[in-house]
């Protein structure tokens, strides 16, 4: 099945790291679930994936599902392509999204919508799953759209 993606085909495809650290995240996105880390010791939310809690140094990091409601913390719009797949793309929008529901951890994604849309820091966004079913190893990206 062809799936529609924000960026063109041929972009680097994510694969779980060889040590298993973030396998749960990538498996979760395939099911349409957004899983992030939370310390089983002190309850601190943490992103990106790490073996140890940065706050209490517990190794008991758990995966917890969140709704994916966030706020735009920062943004950028690359115009100059640095990858062959982007050569004819034109500008695209990247957002750094803060998640108040998960201790204000931040996640990176594209902001779906027209490339010239106004981006407002603090605006509310929600997670959208973007499956890449045709990839050699299928994967799903988490993207963001205004809510």
């Amino acid at each position, binding site marked *: 099945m062809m799936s529609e993606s924000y*960026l063109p085909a041929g*972009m*680097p*495809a*994510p*694969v*779980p*790291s*060889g040590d298993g650290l*973030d396998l749960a995240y*990538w498996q979760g996105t395939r099911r349409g679930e957004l899983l992030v880390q939370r310390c089983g010791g002190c309850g601190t939310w*943490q*992103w*990106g*994936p*790490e073996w140890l809690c*940065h706050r209490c140094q517990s190794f008991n990091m758990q995966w917890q599902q969140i709704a994916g409601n966030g706020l735009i*913390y*920062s*943004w*950028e*719009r*690359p*115009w*100059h392509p*640095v*990858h*062959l797949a*982007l050569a004819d793309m034109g*500008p*695209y929008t*990247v957002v*750094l999204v803060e998640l108040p529901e998960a201790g204000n*951890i*931040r*996640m*990176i*994604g*594209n902001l779906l919508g027209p490339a010239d849309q106004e981006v407002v*820091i603090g605006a509310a966004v929600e997670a959208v799953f973007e499956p890449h079913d045709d990839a050699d*190893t299928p994967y799903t*990206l988490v993207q963001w759209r205004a809510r």
Partner: protein
Amino acid sequence: MSGRSIRGKVAVAGIGETTYYKHGKSPNAEFALALQAILRACEDAGIKPQEVDGLASYSNDRSDPSRIAAALGMPDLRFSNMQWGGGGGGVAAAVANGSAAIAAGYADCVVVFRALAQGQFRRFGQGAPDPTVSGDAAYMAPYGVMSPAQKYGMRATRFMHDYGVKNDTLRAIAMASYQHAQSNPRAVMHGRPLDGETYDNSRWIVEPINRLFDCCQENDGAAALLLVSAERAKDLRQKPAYVLGAAQGSDHRCGAPVMNATNFASSSFATVAPRLYETAGVSPNDIDVVQSYENFTTGVLMAVVEHGFCAPEEANEFFTLENLSAPTGRMPLNTSGGNLAECYMHGLGLQLEAVRQIRGQSCNQIPNAKLAMNIAGPMVTPVSSLIMGSEETL
């Protein structure tokens, strides 16, 4: 002053660089460039290459120290050192590491060098061609976040948002570098002045913070500087530029993955800069001239603020071409043309320029410059910075 400070114990006695080329234009191999720069630093100091007994670099420089030691006929390689991580953020730390080795007695004559032929190897400004990515890159590259401009852009967007900083500040930083390069015959952009209209009409690399002229060049070349003890430096042919203080590192969770640094809207100098001033025993008001690594003008903006030259709320008034221009500006900046307009020698060219200012040999000399600030590549981690001074500052 603590007995553990580096202050006044070590001096730069020699500097050297190759011709600076646009990327891909060097007729010589990267390793040959490294040797040329090192030999020129020795010649400048009046020291035989065989007297060098230490080598220090950063950013995983490809020119192996043992190969250099063999090529130079060094009878006793006593110190070899690579500053870990941080890319161009390590340039001042490499000078600091070499200085520390001399102060500790590990070596007597350390050359700090960087050789970079981006035309012969992968360019920093290009995404890696790998079809798959894992680790941190898996959360960035699939979204089109691959080059340094893209990886550091959102720090600056947020900083400028938080403090109401206008893009005119970035324009002033870019124009100061190009203005200074016009009187520097070594500069790749010598003879290619930048006017405000050209800057304003230049294309976005990353909106809303990096136009073309806000981004460093990509170059081929090499640079080196030679360190000896303060006592030894007094007997050599050049006026010594003393290391007054140096600091490296980064603040709380600066390297937290996927842009989760605690202090994200930052150049990573929040704790490093205060340590630098403490060890050097000077304050921002004492500094005569600033060499601040331009990966992007945004990094200069944040790093200069974090080194206390102005408050973030004052940035719009502070960062003007007049204030940043040699010789009379309030804070003359990047007086060789810097990474933007002299050469992207991964920041080592800026360190050499600080030495020239202390010696009185700059193409854009600040009259009677006694204290020069060197700020290494901002926004990465670890970062580093260093202050050099003339003998009268000791």
